[in-house]
Protein backbone atom coordinates (compact mmCIF):
# COMPACT_ATOMS: atom_id res chain seq x y z
CA UNK A 1 0.00 0.00 0.00
CA UNK A 2 1.33 3.41 -0.93
CA UNK A 3 1.63 6.22 1.55
CA UNK A 4 -1.04 8.46 0.02
CA UNK A 5 -3.68 6.02 1.09
CA UNK A 6 -2.83 5.19 4.70
CA UNK A 7 -4.98 6.49 7.52
CA UNK A 8 -2.30 8.68 9.05
CA UNK A 9 -1.99 10.62 5.82
CA UNK A 10 -5.68 11.10 5.27
CA UNK A 11 -6.99 14.55 6.01
CA UNK A 12 -9.32 15.22 8.91
CA UNK A 13 -10.60 18.40 10.53
CA UNK A 14 -12.90 19.52 13.33
CA UNK A 15 -16.37 21.03 12.92
CA UNK A 16 -17.47 24.04 14.94
CA UNK A 17 -21.17 24.92 14.99
CA UNK A 18 -22.13 28.07 16.85
CA UNK A 19 -25.66 29.32 17.48
CA UNK A 20 -26.94 28.16 14.11
CA UNK A 21 -30.45 29.26 13.15
CA UNK A 22 -32.35 28.05 10.11
CA UNK A 23 -35.65 29.56 9.07
CA UNK A 24 -37.54 28.50 5.95
CA UNK A 25 -39.67 31.08 4.22
CA UNK A 26 -40.52 34.58 5.34
CA UNK A 27 -43.13 36.37 7.43
CA UNK A 28 -46.05 34.52 8.96
CA UNK A 29 -45.60 31.35 6.95
CA UNK A 30 -41.97 30.90 7.89
CA UNK A 31 -40.89 27.81 9.80
CA UNK A 32 -38.12 27.83 12.36
CA UNK A 33 -36.27 24.60 11.65
CA UNK A 34 -33.18 25.07 13.82
CA UNK A 35 -33.01 27.40 16.79
CA UNK A 36 -29.60 28.16 18.22
CA UNK A 37 -27.73 24.92 17.62
CA UNK A 38 -24.18 24.82 18.99
CA UNK A 39 -21.76 21.94 19.27
CA UNK A 40 -18.25 20.93 18.34
CA UNK A 41 -17.02 17.77 16.65
CA UNK A 42 -13.37 16.95 17.32
CA UNK A 43 -10.93 15.97 14.64
CA UNK A 44 -11.14 12.18 14.04
CA UNK A 45 -14.36 11.96 16.03
CA UNK A 46 -17.38 9.96 14.91
CA UNK A 47 -20.40 11.95 15.96
CA UNK A 48 -23.99 10.80 15.43
CA UNK A 49 -27.14 12.92 15.57
CA UNK A 50 -30.50 11.40 16.43
CA UNK A 51 -33.82 13.15 16.78
CA UNK A 52 -37.50 12.93 15.91
CA UNK A 53 -38.37 13.28 12.24
CA UNK A 54 -38.63 16.89 11.17
CA UNK A 55 -36.25 18.11 13.88
CA UNK A 56 -33.90 19.51 11.26
CA UNK A 57 -31.06 17.01 11.69
CA UNK A 58 -30.70 16.50 7.95
CA UNK A 59 -30.94 20.24 7.35
CA UNK A 60 -28.08 20.70 9.80
CA UNK A 61 -25.96 18.36 7.71
CA UNK A 62 -26.86 20.22 4.51
CA UNK A 63 -25.81 23.45 6.25
CA UNK A 64 -22.40 21.98 7.14
CA UNK A 65 -22.06 20.74 3.55
CA UNK A 66 -22.86 24.27 2.38
CA UNK A 67 -25.76 23.01 0.28
CA UNK A 68 -28.25 25.17 2.18
CA UNK A 69 -27.88 28.68 3.55
CA UNK A 70 -28.23 29.22 7.27
CA UNK A 71 -30.26 32.11 8.62
CA UNK A 72 -27.82 32.84 11.44
CA UNK A 73 -24.82 31.61 13.38
CA UNK A 74 -21.47 30.30 12.23
CA UNK A 75 -20.20 26.97 10.94
CA UNK A 76 -16.49 26.31 10.55
CA UNK A 77 -14.65 23.23 9.31
CA UNK A 78 -10.97 23.08 10.24
CA UNK A 79 -11.31 26.68 11.44
CA UNK A 80 -12.48 27.91 8.03
CA UNK A 81 -16.02 29.31 7.91
CA UNK A 82 -18.44 27.47 5.61
CA UNK A 83 -19.70 29.74 2.82
CA UNK A 84 -20.76 27.13 0.27
CA UNK A 85 -20.18 23.54 -0.79
CA UNK A 86 -16.63 22.30 -1.13
CA UNK A 87 -14.54 19.18 -1.63
CA UNK A 88 -13.28 19.26 1.98
CA UNK A 89 -16.74 18.11 3.11
CA UNK A 90 -17.70 14.79 1.54
CA UNK A 91 -21.27 13.58 1.82
CA UNK A 92 -23.19 10.33 1.52
CA UNK A 93 -26.89 10.95 0.90
CA UNK A 94 -29.93 8.95 1.86
CA UNK A 95 -31.09 8.82 -1.75
CA UNK A 96 -28.96 7.07 -4.35
CA UNK A 97 -26.74 9.70 -5.89
CA UNK A 98 -24.29 7.75 -8.03
CA UNK A 99 -23.97 9.27 -11.49
CA UNK A 100 -25.92 6.78 -13.62
CA UNK A 101 -23.89 7.47 -16.78
CA UNK A 102 -20.59 6.61 -15.10
CA UNK A 103 -19.38 3.14 -14.17
CA UNK A 104 -18.65 2.29 -10.54
CA UNK A 105 -14.94 2.98 -11.06
CA UNK A 106 -15.64 6.27 -12.86
CA UNK A 107 -17.96 7.34 -10.05
CA UNK A 108 -15.24 6.73 -7.46
CA UNK A 109 -12.70 8.50 -9.69
CA UNK A 110 -14.92 11.58 -10.05
CA UNK A 111 -13.30 13.58 -7.24
CA UNK A 112 -9.66 12.60 -7.91
CA UNK A 113 -10.16 13.32 -11.62
CA UNK A 114 -11.51 16.77 -10.88
CA UNK A 115 -8.49 17.41 -8.65
CA UNK A 116 -6.22 16.55 -11.57
CA UNK A 117 -4.66 13.29 -10.37
CA UNK A 118 -2.93 11.48 -13.25
CA UNK A 119 -4.64 8.34 -14.54
CA UNK A 120 -2.29 5.88 -12.85
CA UNK A 121 -2.74 7.46 -9.44
CA UNK A 122 -6.48 7.69 -9.98
CA UNK A 123 -6.63 3.99 -10.72
CA UNK A 124 -4.70 3.27 -7.54
CA UNK A 125 -7.11 5.33 -5.46
CA UNK A 126 -10.14 3.72 -7.10
CA UNK A 127 -8.73 0.21 -6.59
CA UNK A 128 -8.01 0.94 -2.95
CA UNK A 129 -11.45 2.25 -2.06
CA UNK A 130 -13.36 -0.31 -4.11
CA UNK A 131 -11.38 -2.92 -2.21
CA UNK A 132 -12.30 -1.21 1.08
CA UNK A 133 -16.00 -1.54 0.31
CA UNK A 134 -15.58 -4.98 -1.28
CA UNK A 135 -16.75 -4.10 -4.79
CA UNK A 136 -13.60 -4.64 -6.84
CA UNK A 137 -15.39 -7.02 -9.21
CA UNK A 138 -18.07 -4.45 -9.93
CA UNK A 139 -15.71 -1.70 -11.11
CA UNK A 140 -17.09 -1.71 -14.65
CA UNK A 141 -20.76 -2.04 -13.79
CA UNK A 142 -23.22 0.80 -14.15
CA UNK A 143 -25.08 1.87 -10.97
CA UNK A 144 -28.36 0.60 -12.43
CA UNK A 145 -26.89 -2.91 -12.22
CA UNK A 146 -26.24 -2.67 -8.47
CA UNK A 147 -28.42 -3.35 -5.42
CA UNK A 148 -29.26 -0.56 -2.98
CA UNK A 149 -26.60 -1.63 -0.49
CA UNK A 150 -23.94 -1.80 -3.19
CA UNK A 151 -24.87 1.67 -4.44
CA UNK A 152 -24.36 3.10 -0.95
CA UNK A 153 -21.03 1.30 -0.65
CA UNK A 154 -19.90 2.92 -3.89
CA UNK A 155 -21.20 6.28 -2.64
CA UNK A 156 -19.07 5.83 0.49
CA UNK A 157 -16.03 4.88 -1.61
CA UNK A 158 -16.63 7.89 -3.88
CA UNK A 159 -16.79 10.28 -0.92
CA UNK A 160 -13.66 8.81 0.69
CA UNK A 161 -11.68 8.71 -2.56
CA UNK A 162 -11.95 12.48 -2.67
CA UNK A 163 -10.13 12.60 0.69
CA UNK A 164 -12.44 15.07 2.46
CA UNK A 165 -11.59 16.54 5.88
CA UNK A 166 -14.99 15.57 7.21
CA UNK A 167 -17.52 13.00 6.08
CA UNK A 168 -21.20 13.91 6.34
CA UNK A 169 -23.63 11.01 6.26
CA UNK A 170 -27.37 11.67 5.97
CA UNK A 171 -29.20 8.47 6.96
CA UNK A 172 -27.14 6.63 4.37
CA UNK A 173 -28.59 3.24 5.25
CA UNK A 174 -32.14 4.48 5.81
CA UNK A 175 -33.50 3.02 2.59
CA UNK A 176 -31.92 -0.41 3.04
CA UNK A 177 -33.45 -3.60 4.44
CA UNK A 178 -32.36 -4.52 7.96
CA UNK A 179 -29.91 -7.26 6.98
CA UNK A 180 -28.13 -5.10 4.43
CA UNK A 181 -28.17 -2.26 6.92
CA UNK A 182 -26.39 -4.39 9.55
CA UNK A 183 -23.77 -5.42 7.00
CA UNK A 184 -23.28 -1.76 6.03
CA UNK A 185 -22.80 -0.75 9.65
CA UNK A 186 -20.11 -3.41 10.10
CA UNK A 187 -18.45 -2.22 6.90
CA UNK A 188 -18.54 1.40 8.00
CA UNK A 189 -16.98 0.48 11.39
CA UNK A 190 -14.12 -1.22 9.55
CA UNK A 191 -13.63 1.54 6.98
CA UNK A 192 -13.78 4.27 9.60
CA UNK A 193 -11.12 2.42 11.62
CA UNK A 194 -8.87 2.64 8.55
CA UNK A 195 -9.49 6.29 7.70
CA UNK A 196 -10.40 7.97 11.02
CA UNK A 197 -12.19 10.77 9.21
CA UNK A 198 -14.23 13.19 11.26
CA UNK A 199 -17.79 11.94 10.71
CA UNK A 200 -21.11 13.64 11.29
CA UNK A 201 -23.72 10.93 10.94
CA UNK A 202 -27.46 11.62 10.96
CA UNK A 203 -29.81 8.73 11.67
CA UNK A 204 -33.16 7.94 13.25
CA UNK A 205 -31.88 4.49 14.26
CA UNK A 206 -30.65 4.66 17.88
CA UNK A 207 -28.86 1.28 17.70
CA UNK A 208 -26.98 2.48 14.67
CA UNK A 209 -25.94 5.71 16.40
CA UNK A 210 -24.61 3.96 19.54
CA UNK A 211 -22.90 1.23 17.57
CA UNK A 212 -21.00 3.59 15.29
CA UNK A 213 -20.39 6.81 17.18
CA UNK A 214 -18.01 8.17 19.82
CA UNK A 215 -20.73 10.57 20.84
CA UNK A 216 -24.47 10.80 20.18
CA UNK A 217 -26.19 14.17 20.01
CA UNK A 218 -29.89 13.99 20.80
CA UNK A 219 -32.02 16.68 19.19
CA UNK A 220 -35.42 17.97 20.23
CA UNK A 221 -38.39 18.34 17.91
CA UNK A 222 -39.00 21.45 15.84
CA UNK A 223 -37.46 23.93 16.26
CA UNK A 224 -34.44 21.67 16.48
CA UNK A 225 -32.03 22.13 19.33
CA UNK A 226 -29.32 19.94 20.81
CA UNK A 227 -30.89 18.40 23.87
CA UNK A 228 -28.00 16.40 25.16
CA UNK A 229 -24.65 15.00 24.10
CA UNK A 230 -24.11 11.42 25.21
CA UNK A 231 -20.55 10.06 25.03
CA UNK A 232 -20.34 6.42 23.96
CA UNK A 233 -17.44 4.93 25.90
CA UNK A 234 -17.66 1.47 24.37
CA UNK A 235 -14.13 0.53 23.25
CA UNK A 236 -13.27 -0.20 19.62
CA UNK A 237 -13.07 -2.30 17.58
CA UNK A 238 -16.79 -2.84 18.01
CA UNK A 239 -18.92 -5.52 16.45
CA UNK A 240 -22.60 -6.19 15.94
CA UNK A 241 -22.92 -8.35 19.08
CA UNK A 242 -22.68 -5.18 21.14
CA UNK A 243 -26.40 -4.55 20.84
CA UNK A 244 -27.07 -7.21 23.49
CA UNK A 245 -24.54 -5.90 26.06
CA UNK A 246 -25.99 -4.24 29.21
CA UNK A 247 -23.83 -1.16 28.62
CA UNK A 248 -25.36 -0.74 25.16
CA UNK A 249 -28.88 -1.26 26.43
CA UNK A 250 -28.39 1.31 29.21
CA UNK A 251 -27.27 3.91 26.66
CA UNK A 252 -30.20 3.06 24.44
CA UNK A 253 -32.60 3.49 27.37
CA UNK A 254 -31.14 6.94 28.09
CA UNK A 255 -31.51 8.10 24.50
CA UNK A 256 -34.99 6.64 24.13
CA UNK A 257 -35.98 8.43 27.32
CA UNK A 258 -34.72 11.75 25.96
CA UNK A 259 -36.60 11.28 22.69
CA UNK A 260 -39.75 10.14 24.45
CA UNK A 261 -39.72 13.18 26.75
CA UNK A 262 -39.74 15.30 23.69
CA UNK A 263 -42.67 13.48 22.19
CA UNK A 264 -44.64 13.94 25.41
CA UNK A 265 -43.79 17.61 25.43
CA UNK A 266 -45.23 17.94 21.93
CA UNK A 267 -48.71 16.83 22.87
Amino acid at each position, binding site marked *: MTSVLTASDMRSADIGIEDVVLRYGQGENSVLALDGVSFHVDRNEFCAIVGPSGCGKSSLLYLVAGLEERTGGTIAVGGKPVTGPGANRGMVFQSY*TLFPWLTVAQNVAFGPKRKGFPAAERREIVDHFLDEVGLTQFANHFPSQLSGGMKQRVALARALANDPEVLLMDEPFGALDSQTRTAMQALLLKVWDHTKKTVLFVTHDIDEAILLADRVLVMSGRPGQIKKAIPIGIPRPRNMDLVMEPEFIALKRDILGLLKNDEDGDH
Partner: protein
Amino acid sequence: MSSESRLKSLFRPYKPIPRRLGIFLGIFVWVLVIIGWIALTYSGAVKAIFLPRPEEVVEATLKMAANGTLWEHMFASIQVVLIGFFVSSVVAVPLGLTMGTYRVVQAFLDPLVNFVRYLPVSSFVPLFILWIGIGIEQRVAVIIFGIFFQQLVMIADSARGVPRDLVNAAYTLGTSPGDTVRQVVFPATLPNVLDILRVTMGWAWTYLVVAELVAAKSGLGYISLKAMRGFQVDVIFMAIAMIGILGLCTDQIFRLVRKLAAPWDHGSSQ
Protein backbone atom coordinates in the same frame (compact mmCIF):
# COMPACT_ATOMS: atom_id res chain seq x y z
CA MET B 1 -48.26 -23.99 -17.43
CA SER B 2 -51.72 -24.52 -18.88
CA SER B 3 -52.65 -22.56 -21.97
CA GLU B 4 -55.31 -20.74 -20.00
CA SER B 5 -52.90 -19.47 -17.37
CA ARG B 6 -50.40 -18.61 -20.10
CA LEU B 7 -53.02 -16.51 -21.82
CA LYS B 8 -53.88 -14.87 -18.52
CA SER B 9 -50.26 -13.97 -17.88
CA LEU B 10 -50.16 -12.05 -21.18
CA PHE B 11 -52.63 -9.57 -19.76
CA ARG B 12 -50.89 -8.93 -16.48
CA PRO B 13 -49.94 -5.22 -16.37
CA TYR B 14 -46.32 -4.46 -17.36
CA LYS B 15 -45.39 -8.13 -17.55
CA PRO B 16 -42.93 -8.79 -20.38
CA ILE B 17 -44.08 -11.08 -23.20
CA PRO B 18 -41.95 -13.59 -25.18
CA ARG B 19 -39.80 -11.88 -27.81
CA ARG B 20 -41.09 -14.04 -30.64
CA LEU B 21 -44.68 -13.24 -29.76
CA GLY B 22 -43.78 -9.54 -29.82
CA ILE B 23 -42.37 -9.79 -33.33
CA PHE B 24 -45.32 -11.87 -34.51
CA LEU B 25 -47.85 -9.37 -33.14
CA GLY B 26 -45.99 -6.49 -34.78
CA ILE B 27 -46.33 -8.16 -38.18
CA PHE B 28 -49.82 -9.48 -37.48
CA VAL B 29 -51.29 -6.00 -37.03
CA TRP B 30 -50.18 -5.11 -40.56
CA VAL B 31 -51.63 -8.30 -41.95
CA LEU B 32 -54.93 -7.34 -40.33
CA VAL B 33 -54.81 -3.82 -41.78
CA ILE B 34 -54.12 -5.13 -45.29
CA ILE B 35 -56.79 -7.83 -45.04
CA GLY B 36 -59.26 -5.19 -43.88
CA TRP B 37 -58.21 -2.95 -46.74
CA ILE B 38 -58.66 -5.75 -49.30
CA ALA B 39 -62.05 -6.68 -47.82
CA LEU B 40 -63.30 -3.08 -47.99
CA THR B 41 -62.19 -2.47 -51.55
CA TYR B 42 -62.88 -5.84 -53.21
CA SER B 43 -66.32 -6.24 -51.62
CA GLY B 44 -67.31 -2.90 -53.10
CA ALA B 45 -68.22 -1.56 -49.66
CA VAL B 46 -66.09 1.49 -50.39
CA LYS B 47 -65.95 2.96 -53.88
CA ALA B 48 -62.58 2.99 -55.65
CA ILE B 49 -62.76 6.77 -55.89
CA PHE B 50 -62.51 7.03 -52.07
CA LEU B 51 -60.21 4.12 -51.32
CA PRO B 52 -57.88 2.53 -53.90
CA ARG B 53 -57.12 -1.16 -53.95
CA PRO B 54 -53.78 -2.13 -52.41
CA GLU B 55 -52.29 -3.20 -55.72
CA GLU B 56 -53.18 0.14 -57.27
CA VAL B 57 -51.12 1.90 -54.63
CA VAL B 58 -48.25 -0.51 -55.26
CA GLU B 59 -48.55 0.08 -59.02
CA ALA B 60 -48.55 3.85 -58.56
CA THR B 61 -45.50 3.55 -56.35
CA LEU B 62 -43.63 1.37 -58.82
CA LYS B 63 -44.50 3.64 -61.72
CA MET B 64 -43.30 6.75 -59.95
CA ALA B 65 -40.23 4.96 -58.70
CA ALA B 66 -39.40 3.83 -62.24
CA ASN B 67 -39.69 7.25 -63.83
CA GLY B 68 -37.77 8.84 -60.95
CA THR B 69 -40.42 11.30 -59.75
CA LEU B 70 -40.86 9.40 -56.48
CA TRP B 71 -37.20 9.81 -55.51
CA GLU B 72 -37.17 13.43 -56.51
CA HIS B 73 -40.14 14.28 -54.29
CA MET B 74 -38.97 12.05 -51.50
CA PHE B 75 -35.58 13.71 -51.51
CA ALA B 76 -37.20 17.16 -51.45
CA SER B 77 -39.27 16.20 -48.40
CA ILE B 78 -36.37 14.58 -46.54
CA GLN B 79 -34.35 17.72 -47.13
CA VAL B 80 -37.03 19.98 -45.67
CA VAL B 81 -37.61 17.79 -42.63
CA LEU B 82 -33.94 17.25 -41.85
CA ILE B 83 -32.91 20.90 -42.23
CA GLY B 84 -35.89 22.06 -40.17
CA PHE B 85 -35.30 19.45 -37.49
CA PHE B 86 -31.58 20.11 -37.35
CA VAL B 87 -31.82 23.91 -37.12
CA SER B 88 -34.53 23.66 -34.49
CA SER B 89 -32.68 21.09 -32.37
CA VAL B 90 -29.33 22.87 -32.50
CA VAL B 91 -30.92 25.88 -30.82
CA ALA B 92 -33.57 24.16 -28.70
CA VAL B 93 -31.28 21.67 -26.92
CA PRO B 94 -28.79 24.15 -25.40
CA LEU B 95 -31.45 26.80 -24.83
CA GLY B 96 -33.84 24.30 -23.26
CA LEU B 97 -31.15 22.95 -20.95
CA THR B 98 -30.23 26.49 -19.93
CA MET B 99 -33.87 27.33 -19.38
CA GLY B 100 -34.42 24.30 -17.17
CA THR B 101 -31.25 24.87 -15.17
CA TYR B 102 -31.23 28.61 -14.56
CA ARG B 103 -34.36 30.08 -13.00
CA VAL B 104 -33.51 33.53 -14.35
CA VAL B 105 -33.57 32.27 -17.95
CA GLN B 106 -36.78 30.38 -17.25
CA ALA B 107 -38.47 33.45 -15.78
CA PHE B 108 -37.47 35.43 -18.87
CA LEU B 109 -38.51 32.93 -21.54
CA ASP B 110 -41.42 30.99 -20.00
CA PRO B 111 -44.19 33.57 -20.61
CA LEU B 112 -43.17 34.03 -24.22
CA VAL B 113 -42.62 30.36 -25.04
CA ASN B 114 -45.86 29.24 -23.43
CA PHE B 115 -47.74 31.78 -25.51
CA VAL B 116 -46.10 31.01 -28.82
CA ARG B 117 -46.28 27.25 -28.54
CA TYR B 118 -50.08 27.31 -28.61
CA LEU B 119 -50.25 29.30 -31.84
CA PRO B 120 -51.42 27.15 -34.76
CA VAL B 121 -48.62 26.53 -37.23
CA SER B 122 -50.92 26.56 -40.25
CA SER B 123 -52.02 30.13 -39.55
CA PHE B 124 -48.43 31.25 -39.97
CA VAL B 125 -48.02 29.77 -43.45
CA PRO B 126 -49.35 32.89 -45.25
CA LEU B 127 -47.12 35.07 -43.05
CA PHE B 128 -44.07 32.95 -43.79
CA ILE B 129 -44.80 33.23 -47.50
CA LEU B 130 -45.06 36.99 -47.12
CA TRP B 131 -41.86 37.22 -45.10
CA ILE B 132 -39.69 34.49 -46.55
CA GLY B 133 -41.14 33.80 -49.98
CA ILE B 134 -42.02 30.45 -51.49
CA GLY B 135 -38.63 28.76 -51.54
CA ILE B 136 -37.46 25.86 -49.41
CA GLU B 137 -36.79 28.33 -46.57
CA GLN B 138 -40.52 28.82 -46.15
CA ARG B 139 -41.15 25.08 -45.77
CA VAL B 140 -38.21 24.73 -43.37
CA ALA B 141 -39.59 27.64 -41.34
CA VAL B 142 -42.92 25.83 -40.95
CA ILE B 143 -41.17 22.72 -39.60
CA ILE B 144 -39.06 24.80 -37.23
CA PHE B 145 -42.07 26.74 -36.00
CA GLY B 146 -43.93 23.48 -35.51
CA ILE B 147 -41.39 21.75 -33.30
CA PHE B 148 -38.98 24.32 -31.82
CA PHE B 149 -41.13 25.58 -28.96
CA GLN B 150 -42.30 22.08 -28.08
CA GLN B 151 -38.70 20.88 -27.97
CA LEU B 152 -37.74 23.84 -25.82
CA VAL B 153 -40.46 23.21 -23.25
CA MET B 154 -39.84 19.47 -23.00
CA ILE B 155 -36.06 19.78 -22.78
CA ALA B 156 -36.35 22.48 -20.12
CA ASP B 157 -38.67 20.18 -18.16
CA SER B 158 -36.19 17.38 -18.37
CA ALA B 159 -33.34 19.58 -17.12
CA ARG B 160 -35.58 20.80 -14.30
CA GLY B 161 -36.22 17.20 -13.31
CA VAL B 162 -32.60 16.29 -12.58
CA PRO B 163 -32.59 14.95 -8.98
CA ARG B 164 -31.34 17.72 -6.72
CA ASP B 165 -29.21 15.35 -4.65
CA LEU B 166 -27.35 14.28 -7.79
CA VAL B 167 -26.34 17.92 -8.22
CA ASN B 168 -25.60 18.19 -4.49
CA ALA B 169 -23.39 15.10 -4.64
CA ALA B 170 -21.31 16.75 -7.36
CA TYR B 171 -21.00 19.91 -5.27
CA THR B 172 -19.71 17.91 -2.29
CA LEU B 173 -17.12 16.40 -4.62
CA GLY B 174 -15.91 19.89 -5.35
CA THR B 175 -17.48 20.91 -8.66
CA SER B 176 -18.20 24.56 -9.42
CA PRO B 177 -21.72 25.55 -10.53
CA GLY B 178 -20.62 25.68 -14.18
CA ASP B 179 -18.90 22.29 -13.98
CA THR B 180 -21.94 20.84 -12.28
CA VAL B 181 -24.14 21.86 -15.18
CA ARG B 182 -21.71 20.42 -17.73
CA GLN B 183 -20.75 17.28 -15.85
CA VAL B 184 -24.04 16.41 -14.15
CA VAL B 185 -27.07 18.18 -15.63
CA PHE B 186 -26.13 17.53 -19.27
CA PRO B 187 -25.31 13.82 -19.00
CA ALA B 188 -28.23 13.27 -16.62
CA THR B 189 -30.67 14.63 -19.20
CA LEU B 190 -29.07 12.98 -22.25
CA PRO B 191 -31.39 9.94 -22.46
CA ASN B 192 -34.42 12.21 -22.07
CA VAL B 193 -33.16 14.70 -24.64
CA LEU B 194 -32.64 11.90 -27.17
CA ASP B 195 -36.18 10.66 -26.51
CA ILE B 196 -37.54 14.17 -27.00
CA LEU B 197 -35.62 14.54 -30.27
CA ARG B 198 -37.03 11.23 -31.47
CA VAL B 199 -40.60 12.24 -30.66
CA THR B 200 -40.28 15.70 -32.20
CA MET B 201 -38.69 14.20 -35.32
CA GLY B 202 -42.02 12.39 -35.73
CA TRP B 203 -43.85 15.70 -35.40
CA ALA B 204 -41.57 17.24 -38.02
CA TRP B 205 -42.86 14.63 -40.50
CA THR B 206 -46.45 15.47 -39.61
CA TYR B 207 -45.82 19.18 -40.26
CA LEU B 208 -44.28 18.38 -43.64
CA VAL B 209 -47.62 18.31 -45.45
CA VAL B 210 -48.65 21.63 -43.90
CA ALA B 211 -45.34 23.01 -45.15
CA GLU B 212 -45.77 21.64 -48.67
CA LEU B 213 -49.48 22.32 -49.03
CA VAL B 214 -49.01 25.87 -50.25
CA ALA B 215 -46.58 27.16 -52.82
CA ALA B 216 -44.39 24.06 -52.99
CA LYS B 217 -43.18 22.68 -56.31
CA SER B 218 -41.93 19.36 -55.00
CA GLY B 219 -42.23 16.99 -52.06
CA LEU B 220 -44.54 14.22 -50.92
CA GLY B 221 -47.07 16.72 -49.57
CA TYR B 222 -47.05 18.53 -52.89
CA ILE B 223 -47.71 15.42 -55.01
CA SER B 224 -50.52 14.31 -52.77
CA LEU B 225 -52.15 17.71 -53.15
CA LYS B 226 -51.67 17.59 -56.91
CA ALA B 227 -53.07 14.05 -56.98
CA MET B 228 -56.17 15.20 -55.15
CA ARG B 229 -56.98 17.63 -57.95
CA GLY B 230 -56.97 14.71 -60.38
CA PHE B 231 -58.72 12.30 -57.98
CA GLN B 232 -55.66 10.05 -58.02
CA VAL B 233 -56.36 8.46 -54.66
CA ASP B 234 -53.72 5.84 -55.23
CA VAL B 235 -51.01 8.52 -55.44
CA ILE B 236 -52.31 10.22 -52.28
CA PHE B 237 -52.10 6.90 -50.48
CA MET B 238 -48.62 6.33 -51.78
CA ALA B 239 -47.46 9.74 -50.52
CA ILE B 240 -48.99 9.13 -47.11
CA ALA B 241 -47.42 5.68 -46.89
CA MET B 242 -44.02 7.08 -47.87
CA ILE B 243 -44.15 9.74 -45.15
CA GLY B 244 -45.07 7.01 -42.66
CA ILE B 245 -42.21 4.79 -43.78
CA LEU B 246 -39.68 7.62 -43.68
CA GLY B 247 -40.92 8.59 -40.22
CA LEU B 248 -40.55 4.99 -39.08
CA CYS B 249 -36.98 4.86 -40.44
CA THR B 250 -35.87 8.04 -38.65
CA ASP B 251 -37.53 6.74 -35.49
CA GLN B 252 -35.52 3.52 -35.66
CA ILE B 253 -32.30 5.46 -36.28
CA PHE B 254 -32.97 7.55 -33.19
CA ARG B 255 -33.63 4.46 -31.09
CA LEU B 256 -30.28 3.07 -32.19
CA VAL B 257 -28.47 6.35 -31.50
CA ARG B 258 -30.00 6.48 -28.04
CA LYS B 259 -28.95 2.92 -27.31
CA LEU B 260 -25.36 3.71 -28.32
CA ALA B 261 -25.15 7.17 -26.75
CA ALA B 262 -26.79 6.28 -23.42
CA PRO B 263 -25.97 2.62 -22.79
CA TRP B 264 -26.57 3.02 -19.04
CA ASP B 265 -30.23 3.94 -19.46
CA HIS B 266 -32.66 1.48 -20.95
CA GLY B 267 -35.54 3.92 -20.76
CA SER B 268 -39.22 3.16 -20.96
CA SER B 269 -39.40 2.66 -24.69
CA GLN B 270 -37.40 -0.55 -24.78
